């Protein structure tokens, strides 16, 4: 087991190192001069040079790469070229929007998907199943940003129940802030729920056929108790795995939804930072997202290793 974990940890480190290199090289060859963007069309050459020196862009690439990695490891933040504040601070300010949004989407999609998946499994081949699977197909086909646009049209423009866009900030009141996240969270949750409902249906079907469920039935437990007690608990294991991975992708996948609703989240930050060539910000945000995915994958692998000894050999 220790060897297995060590191997997985090594893979984790190698993946992170390769990713950091890929990020750095990509940003290095990205066309566009950050100094020119900051100072605009009337800027003089000496002013541009002064600015580049000020933010350290005049140092050789290897020095900047090592300084970046050193900073990440020791926890010292770079300074954003445009905002002139530490990047970690900037990321922190955005995470207070993006993480609650992703969590809300995750909870909503789970609350929608689990009952639907169970219903479909129990009613396999009948109308309930048909309805759920139909919903799932439609949910997967509708682009989430279009759902968001339509939700704005209906619930904000026509009915006026929700703000059309923007985020008032948590200090505007918890309820007000949360309210502004409802439509975006729903837009994110819909396709997730559609996928998750299928996973839920499949895993419930699988557990329904398992020996211990038959035994439970044989013991005379009521159908409901078997379903909610045994089946759901076991079906939750594969679903939690999927949920973990979904969460990582919700963080990044919210870029489009954050654009639709003009939310000041992580996705907007990376989008704006790329167009402003604030590369110090871009590389840290991308690295954070990558690290998130990789670490979750690592944890999932470890969990599987614990549950299923065969996984340790398979690699």
């Amino acid at each position: 087991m220790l060897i297995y974990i060590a191997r997985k940890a090594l893979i984790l480190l190698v993946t992170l190192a390769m990713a950091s290199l890929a990020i750095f090289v990509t940003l290095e060859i990205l066309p566009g001069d950050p100094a020119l963007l900051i100072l605009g069309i009337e800027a003089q050459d000496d002013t541009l040079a002064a600015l580049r020196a000020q933010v350290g862009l005049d140092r050789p690439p290897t020095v900047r790469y090592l300084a970046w990695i050193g900073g990440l490891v020791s926890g010292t933040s770079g300074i954003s070229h445009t905002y002139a504040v530490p990047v970690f601070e900037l990321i922190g300010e955005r995470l207070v929007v993006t993480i609650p949004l992703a969590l809300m989407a995750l909870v909503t999609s789970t609350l929608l998907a689990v009952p639907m998946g169970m219903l479909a499994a129990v009613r396999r081949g009948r109308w309930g199943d048909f309805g759920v699977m139909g919903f799932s197909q439609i949910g997967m086909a509708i682009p989430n940003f279009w759902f968001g646009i339509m939700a704005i049209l209906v619930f904000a423009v026509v009915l006026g129940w929700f703000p059309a866009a923007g985020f008032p900030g948590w200090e505007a009141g918890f309820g007000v802030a949360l309210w502004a996240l409802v439509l975006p969270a729903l837009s994110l949750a819909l396709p997730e729920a559609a996928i998750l409902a299928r996973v839920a249906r499949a895993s419930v079907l699988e557990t329904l056929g398992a020996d211990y469920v038959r035994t439970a039935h044989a013991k005379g437990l009521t159908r409901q108790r078997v379903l909610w007690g045994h089946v759901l608990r076991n079906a939750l294991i594969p679903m939690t795995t999927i949920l973990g991975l979904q969460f990582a992708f919700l963080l990044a996948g919210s870029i489009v939804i954050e654009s639709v609703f003009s939310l000041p989240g992580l996705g907007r930050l990376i989008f704006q930072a790329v167009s402003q060539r604030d590369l110090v910000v871009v590389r840290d945000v991308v690295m954070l997202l990558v690290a998130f995915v990789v670490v979750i994958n690592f944890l999932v692998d470890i969990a599987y290793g614990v549950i299923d000894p065969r996984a340790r050999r398979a690699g």
Partner: protein
Amino acid sequence: MNKLLLGTAVVVFLMITGLTVGSANAQSKNSLMIGVTLEPPHLDPTAGAAAAIDETVYANVFEGLTRIDQNGAIQPQLAESWTVSDDGLVYTFNLKRDVTFHDGTSFEASDVVFSFDRARAGDSVNAQKALFAAIETVEATDPMTVKVTLSRPEGSLLFNLGWGDAVIVAPESAATNKTSPVGTGPFKFSRWVKGDRVELVAVAPDAPIQKATFRFMSDPSAQVAALKAGDIDAATNLNAPEAVLAFQADRNFEVAIGTTEGETILSINNTRAPLDDVRVRRAIAHGIDRKAIIDGAMFGFGTPIGSHFAPHHPAYVDLTGTYPHDPAKARALLAEAGVTDLAVTLKLPPPAYARRSGEIVAAQLKEVGITVEIVPVEWAQWLEQVFRGDDFDLTIVSHTEPLDIGIYARDKYYFNYDSPAFKAVIKRLNATSDPAARNALLAVAQDIVAVDAVNGFMFQLARLGVWRKGLKGMWRNAPVQAIDITGVRWE
């Protein structure tokens, strides 16, 4: 499992509470909430070109020796009065007394010297360093008097000193102005919620507006919804003209169609064959239909221009008839120039005015036999390829600097126009101070670039402001990049 249930219950409860708290949001009458499109990258107007910086802090937080008023005229600000020597080389400014910076330090001549020397220094990162190019020395002759000596006469010095890039900063706070600006204006910086808003509070306890908030809403439809919901009181420049339509019939709002200094032009690379042939450029001029562009891209908001000059300026001459829309004439000119199957690229920067008019221009030029390939670019690429790299055929951009026809006299400016006749006119202009004579020279200058069809002159950008009825003192026009709220009050 129980934890999961508990968590779910909490979230559901929160959603319900959110539902009940959601709508109530009344405006008290001494606060002001303004929706703006772009968030400033930082708040130091002396260290960046972004218009959003000036819009937030110019005149409100930071002040210069002079200021530009709503009509584009020069007014005294931190300089109470000034005298100019007969040769135009020495300016003596008498400073306003009893002015303090927001951190409590007093404003004196030494601050002016510091600010201007900082902007002119070798390691300066001032985006408009050229504004100070004529300055030889800046001296404090006494704590309330500053003497600025020039190396050559500069007719626009007093105007230049009214720019946001020339505001007066204190040595104690200059280094941290980007994140916590300290100026002498009637509002002081309170806080900045990144990605969402900047808050300013009044210095004077009896000011009509005690708290002013700039909220960043990149999406015009969000600004419209926020205005209607009362979340914001004003939007000073809706970058989607169609959004204005929603307010024109609404009695609760005032719609202000004002002017800007933005000449929106189809820039042509004048040295690239066959665009170096004036007949080809005239064909392009005949090929574009300004009315269709203004209607289609700007929903009718915008004034056609025939040269690189703002229609509201006293020296303006209407030259839109120089090359009227005439596809047949355009084709004839192309044939005369021996150009067949002309294919060009049109690089479009991100703003909606550029992308939209670009699509229409491409369709219009197709009508006269010019194939236009649209290449959308980010600002970073535009600056590098078009503005600095000379790598373009056509582009669309709005030139927002006030009175900037002088760019046509610059060597190696991005559209590569080179006319000795025009340069001579600008040289005479710089040496002329009589207003009538200056206007006459400006008229000649306008005519030369129009006749040479240097660029496709399309329209002057309109400033589309919408605010709640009862809000007085908002600027209708934008002679400088500013949202000056120092004279705003509720009635």
